[in-house]
């Protein structure tokens, strides 16, 4: 496969690359290799991004630069160099010499990637030890503080003595980056460094990574999110099925993709444009009137009203703590409001005794964020879906409707992928033939490309069955593709609402503007200090 090789040579020829890979192949056991003939190089002060769907082999490729591909991995390459050293035949001991000092790793979710039982400063100091020459104790503290400061953490003296759970998400990620850089590696591998973060914090971490790159460190960024990548990368390499299928500058690859895998990635990431639909007038199928609910002293929901017409989809958007999930539970009749009323198809819903309400439960169903928790761990898919059946359709038909092979009925949920599980949850909800579907963050735990598939499914079902959708989410991109109207919530109150198209193009409230702006988008342009 000669095509990928020529693309490698676009690295800055003047300086030797900090990482160079040629024809890398990685396999586990007797199975087919998960990485096939991959070649890339990263220069100092350059950011190369590896993008692809999950399973494309991008993480494994990145980890091979640390010698951490996992037990039982066969790694073969024509060239595998880090900071000039040939690491192909390295045993564990020699790898330890390279890790930390030649190459560093920043993983996602710093809460899990930092030892919760150790102080942050000690974690960073550990990175210092990788430098080779032992650092005298009195100097160590000063160096740790300096490393934390460089990562943009204020009051490093205070922070170093704290534990990871005492820091906010953004500070934790910075600490993790500081620990990875403490050994002064020439190459930094960042594997999904911003996935677990809030949109606003994400932007700041990306800025920090840009600074690091501009400081001369070579950065290999692995991500499934093209928008994140386009703000940071000098070159983008697209991987699919273990191979590099396309590469180039982000502006070209992402705005004018050639390979079908790249096209799929781009269309998933760009997000949809909100479209206006006209719906026939009809009395609302779900009505929430001036509902409030408190937990102790905290007002979770404060005087919220909304109405859902049959076949309409309304998105409720807000950050965590905005009260949107509480509102969803009230709408479902799982939680009683302190004041206000909820009407389902014109009849009283909230506050109604459960025994009399039960027959009507089939009208409104729930798709939760984490389907695995919502499935009885002892049951197989078939039994799970059949639980809602009242006669009429059967399990096979339902599975087919959500795009799953009928054979999956015999499997257990934990054997399925996240996207498949969500489809099973949808099939179960459809079994009762509801009129309203409440979706509480249905896709936020899924990969970007899988998100698109599930949302497509929901859209199709909505159109085919005239389902009304109440979509709870923190992601405006999700709203854009599927919701006719959007309601923005903050601290329990509605701050803005209206047709999606209008709200997106002309937001009235400042908070809405903040949310809209914080979204990273493809093609916005990279930050680079000249």
């Amino acid at each position, binding site marked *: 496969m000669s095509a990928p090789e020529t693309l490698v040579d676009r690295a800055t020829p003047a300086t030797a690359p900090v990482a160079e890979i040629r024809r890398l192949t990685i396999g586990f056991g007797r199975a087919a290799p998960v990485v096939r003939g991959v070649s890339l190089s990263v220069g100092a002060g350059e950011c190369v991004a590896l993008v692809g769907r999950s399973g494309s082999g991008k993480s494994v490729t990145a980890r091979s630069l640390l010698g951490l591909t996992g037990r039982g991995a066969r790694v073969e390459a024509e060239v595998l160099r880090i900071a000039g050293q040939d690491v192909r035949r390295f045993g564990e001991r020699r790898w330890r010499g390279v890790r930390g000092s030649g190459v560093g790793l920043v993983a996602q979710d710093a809460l899990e990637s930092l030892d919760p*039982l*150790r102080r942050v400063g000690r974690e960073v100091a550990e990175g210092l030890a990788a430098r080779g020459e032992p650092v005298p104790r009195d100097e160590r503290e000063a160096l740790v503080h300096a490393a934390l400061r460089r990562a943009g953490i204020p009051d490093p003296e205070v922070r170093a003595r704290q534990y990871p759970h005492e820091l906010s998400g953004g500070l934790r990620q910075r600490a993790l980056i500081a620990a*990875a850089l403490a050994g002064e590696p020439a190459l930094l591998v960042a594997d999904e460094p911003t996935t677990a973060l809030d949109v606003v914090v994400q932007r700041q971490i990306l800025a920090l990574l840009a600074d690091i790159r501009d400081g001369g460190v070579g950065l290999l960024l692995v991500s499934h999110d093209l928008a994140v990548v386009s703000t940071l990368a000098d070159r983008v390499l697209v991987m699919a099925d273990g191979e590099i299928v396309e590469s180039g500058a982000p502006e070209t690859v992402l705005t004018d993709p050639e390979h079908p895998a790249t096209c799929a990635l781009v269309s998933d990431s760009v997000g949809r444009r909100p479209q206006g639909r006209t719906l026939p007038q009809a009395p609302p199928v779900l009505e929430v009137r001036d509902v409030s609910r408190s937990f102790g002293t905290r007002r979770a929901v404060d005087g919220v009203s909304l109405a859902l017409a049959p076949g309409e989809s309304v998105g409720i958007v807000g950050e965590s703590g905005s009260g949107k999930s509480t509102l969803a539970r009230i709408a479902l009749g799982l939680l009683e409001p302190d004041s206000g009323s909820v009407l389902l198809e014109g009849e009283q819903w909230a506050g109604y005794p459960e025994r009399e309400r039960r027959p009507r439960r089939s009208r409104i169903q729930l798709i939760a964020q984490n389907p695995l928790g919502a499935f009885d761990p002892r049951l197989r898919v078939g039994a799970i879906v059949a639980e809602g059946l009242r006669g009429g359709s059967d399990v096979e038909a339902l599975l087919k409707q959500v795009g799953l092979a009928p054979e999956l009925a015999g499997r257990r949920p934990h054997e399925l992928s996240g996207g498949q599980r969500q489809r099973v949850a949808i099939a179960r909800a459809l079994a009762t033939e509801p009129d309203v579907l409440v979706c509480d963050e249905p896709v936020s735990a899924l990969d970007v490309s899988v998100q698109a598939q599930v949302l497509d499914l929901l859209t199709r079902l909505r159109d085919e069955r005239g389902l009304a959708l109440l979509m709870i989410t923190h992601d405006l991109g999700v709203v854009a593709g599927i919701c006719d109207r959007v309601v923005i919530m903050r601290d329990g109150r509605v701050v803005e609402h209206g047709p999606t198209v209008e709200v997106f193009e002309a937001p009235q409230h400042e908070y809405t503007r903040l949310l809209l702006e914080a979204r990273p988008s493809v093609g916005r342009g990279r930050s680079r200090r000249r």
Partner: protein
Amino acid sequence: MGRRVTSRARHAVLRRLLAAVAVLWGAVTVTFFAVALAGGDQVAAILGPEAASVPGLREETAARFGLDRPLLAQYLDRLGGLFTGDLGVSYQRGVPVSSLLAGQIGPTLQLAVSAAVFGAVLAVGLTVLTAGGGRVARGAASLLELLAVAVPPFWFGIALLWIFSFTLGWFPAFGAAGIASLVLPTLALALPVAGVLAQVMRQELDVADRRPFALSARARGLGPKELVWRHTLRHTLVPVTTLSAWGLGTLIGGAVLVEKVFSRPGVGRVLVDAVSHRDTAVVSAVVVLAALAFVVTNLLAELLYPVIDARLRSRVPDAAPETAR
């Protein structure tokens, strides 16, 4: 930023202390009333069925042991006795329980402590040595742990006796003279506890090894031994601490059997004797003492948790975490 003990923390300690005292009180109460209600005729148990029917003797005996007083009075006496160290009088032997136990507790304590230390060292050693080792090492260790848990300590003691005392003659077969007589009983007693501890530690070590922070640590150049010492071993301390009170209880119970097998003097012998003679005074006293030991260990363990796992500390952080950096 110093290590301030906030009033909240002090409050928590006080609460736990009160809970521990409550449990101890419950133990004394439950034991007392269980004996009083289910123990049958106490006087008949002391005298034997024939002697109990002798007129006059019954009343005399009852008065002597304080059994003729109302139940509530006896109960309060028992409670009060805990503070003064008065644990009642043995029905079987007629001597104060406290002096009876005091004379015998030495060898038992010796045995329990050495078994505890040995068991802990064995468990930690086995886990650390096989951490990060190959599949063979870990499989062998798991097998050893399984055996340790499944083999009853009394039979193990018998087997050890047979092999090392009677056949090889390396160690004495009975008595409590010197270190040599301590070796085999310690081995037998420590076995099940060490097995469970090792199992729990290994499991926890495996879990911690797979967590993302272990990967990040390895990415900084840490080797497997360093990883265990600096990171994952600490994670095993939490479940081990949880088990410490249970472990103590098992050691105390097991000591009874091991002392019988090795013909060692100690509380075990006294206890078994007391049980077969229905001497509920001695038995309930021993049981309450064991409960005391358990409660104290549990309390210490609960106080130790926040020290091990910083997430459990109720300390208010000095700098409020900012949400937007």
